[in-house]
């Protein structure tokens, strides 16, 4: 066993680092909150990577992938986290893309994959429903066959960034008489179709990141069905396993801990830097230790993938620990900023709103980020559900 990077891998890291330094858009450097971001902001780096051939590193090379080893991919994400880049959104790259190239037909691959690679087409995910959150299989949205079309009716929720989306992938019930998991199909929907309505949901941090999506008599050509009718659950599970492996966020958390240490060095406690306080420093160290454990666990999973194992129920461990660490990190950051955790960034002011907000820069998003990150233990199958998965799939109980 060996955790050292090979000289080739070191060289790869240098190459990645200089590519980011030379090509990452300057105006997006250290970009803070997502709600401030336009569609163009989100896609700028993706488009640059598309031209370079690096936008979908994990895909098979025939569809635009890089052929990188899992270790190279790991280095890639570390370097991006280090530079705080705005990474390509997962909906096309890690979710629908792999479903299409694995289960879609030749026509679907030709039509949809290039737009994901280039960053021209924005995808959103239509899984959750108001009555079906973690119990995804109880979804009610229906797709009824009518000649060459499906007619879709229903309501989806938590449709992340659907306000910018060109296309969505939706789970719809195509056989209402079958058992919960067996009558569901995976259907691609042009978000500009008549009958699709997207309404933003305001979240605790004040931002609009998710939406409610209504589908009323939306007519979708049958060629937009991916794979086999009523077998959508299989594809959905495949997709969720992919989603969960990206969810650990190790590299971002590493960068977050560095930032936390910078903040705690600047804040003072009893006349000394906060980071010199044993109690606080102990919590930061504990977090770092847990993150190190997660990092190696993820590397072991990656090594397994390299050996040909797809992401399996182990990804539930990455989801649980990764999101817990992200939440503790934002919690500690909130604690570190102390008094200036209270002002609401974007709140009304009695003077020129262009003036610099109150408190140190690093305090401005601390509370909002903490509130926002509570979602991580809920989305993608809540952490309770992940524990159920481990109970069943690994413990066999």
């Amino acid at each position: 066993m060996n955790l050292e990077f090979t000289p080739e891998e070191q060289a790869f890291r240098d190459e990645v680092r200089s590519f980011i330094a030379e090509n990452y858009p300057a105006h997006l450097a250290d970009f803070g909150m997502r709600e401030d971001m336009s569609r163009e902001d989100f896609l700028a780096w993706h488009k640059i990577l598309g031209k370079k051939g690096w936008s979908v590193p994990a895909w098979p090379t025939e569809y635009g992938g890089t052929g990188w080893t899992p270790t190279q991919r790991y280095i890639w994400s570390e370097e991006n986290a280090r530079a705080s880049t705005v990474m390509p959104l997962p909906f096309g790259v890690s979710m629908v893309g792999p479903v299409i190239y694995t289960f879609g037909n030749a026509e679907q691959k030709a039509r949809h994959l290039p737009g994901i690679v280039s960053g021209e087409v924005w995808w959103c995910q239509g899984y959750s429903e108001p009555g079906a959150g973690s119990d995804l299989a109880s979804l009610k949205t229906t797709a009824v066959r009518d000649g060459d079309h499906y007619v879709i009716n229903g309501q989806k929720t938590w449709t992340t960034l659907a306000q910018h989306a060109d296309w969505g992938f939706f789970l719809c019930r195509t056989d209402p008489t079958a058992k919960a998991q067996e009558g569901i199909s995976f259907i691609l929907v042009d978000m500009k179709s008549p009958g699709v309505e997207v309404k933003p949901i305001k979240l605790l941090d004040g931002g609009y990141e998710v939406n409610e999506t209504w589908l009323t008599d939306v007519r979708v050509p049958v060629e937009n069905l991916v794979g086999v009718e009523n077998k959508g659950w299989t594809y959905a599970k495949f997709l969720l396993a992919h989603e969960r492996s990206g969810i650990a966020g190790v590299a971002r958390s590493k960068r977050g801990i560095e930032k936390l240490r910078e903040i705690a060095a600047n804040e003072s406690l009893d006349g000394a830097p906060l980071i010199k306080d044993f109690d606080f420093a102990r919590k930061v160290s504990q977090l770092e230790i847990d993150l190190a454990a997660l990092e190696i666990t993820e590397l072991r999973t990656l090594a397994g993938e390299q050996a040909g194992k797809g992401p399996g129920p182990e990804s539930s461990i990455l989801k649980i620990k990764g999101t817990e660490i992200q939440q503790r990190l934002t919690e500690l950051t909130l604690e570190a900023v102390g008094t200036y955790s209270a002002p609401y960034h974007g709140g009304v002011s009695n003077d020129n709103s262009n003036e610099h907000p109150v408190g140190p820069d690093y305090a401005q998003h601390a509370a909002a980020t903490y509130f926002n990150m509570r979602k991580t233990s809920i989305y993608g199958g809540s952490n309770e559900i992940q524990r159920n998965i481990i109970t069943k799939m690994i413990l066999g109980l």
Partner: protein
Amino acid sequence: MDFNFTEEQGMVRDGLSRLVREQYDWETRRKAIASGAGWRPEVWAQLAELGILGMPFSEADGGFGGGAVDAMVIMEEFGKGLVIEPFVPTVVCAGGFLKHAGTDAQKEEHIGGIVSGERVFAFAYAEPRGRFDYADLETTAKKDGAGYVLNGHKAVVIGAPWASHLVVTARTGGERRDRSGVSVFVVAKDTAGITTRDYVTVDGRRASEVYFENVAVGAEALIGAEGEGLALIELVTDEAIAALCAEACGAMKVAHAMTVEYSRQRKQFGVPIGSFQVLQHRMVDMYTAYEQAVSLTYLATLRLGSDEVERKKAVSAAKVGVGQAARLIGQEAVQIHGGNGVTDEYAIGHFFKRLTIFDSEFGNVDHHLKRHVALS
């Protein structure tokens, strides 16, 4: 041993509970927060009418002769409705300074206005780099003839946009972080040289950065003895902490009840999620934490009149225990509410936000754990 409330306290609770229920429903609160004023002066007037704003003052000072337990009863009801009006800055803090150390003339000048609701105060004690240490002051008050000249910057002064007056802490002598040399002043907010930047806080209140630039005040602005203010500040803020703990208990009680109710209604996998043992146990843990927090709040409230060490230990114990419970209950309530818990529309998230900011007010869990250690 007696943990019962008096008949009067029961009446105060009922009256306030009705007011909050009828006048402070969720939609009205939401609108008030979004309004230009950001609060409801008409509710403030009603509180004055009910005698709530005069509760802690002696009858001789024009109040109703209530004590810490009365404040606890009041704050718990405020917490249940997430009431944002500035009872703590005005009545508990400013009122506390006047009550404990005000001259007859100062009491005469201010207490009547507090009781009637006409005078609203904010307590400007925190500084950008002070981090919970009341003696870590860069704000100065230099002797100038009979009066003083104030200079400095106060951070996150809760309720300041609504206030007519400020209680301000400043250094009249000694070095930064010295225990002596700290003084307390009361000044009208429109005094020349005071400027503010007003903003909304994440839990829906209003606050200001307050700047003092050569603010000249008379000798009558000083509360208590010059340079001896720290012990007074500690006493008043301990009272404020006990009050805030009671508020947090009210908020936790409602957050827990809402969560239990939600788990009864919300179905997943064909059954209410409240039937899952893993969630049942977590709601039991929330409930246990809440009950422990209530106990610590009682302890702190009842020890406010004890000697300094006992008082501080009890108050710190409460701030630690209530702070931990507030974190646990806030986070678990959101988690059990699932996606709805992170939306702005559902009330539960707003309870979570108030319970979050509670920790940073007058010292967080770590700070008070450390104070407890130092006193033990």
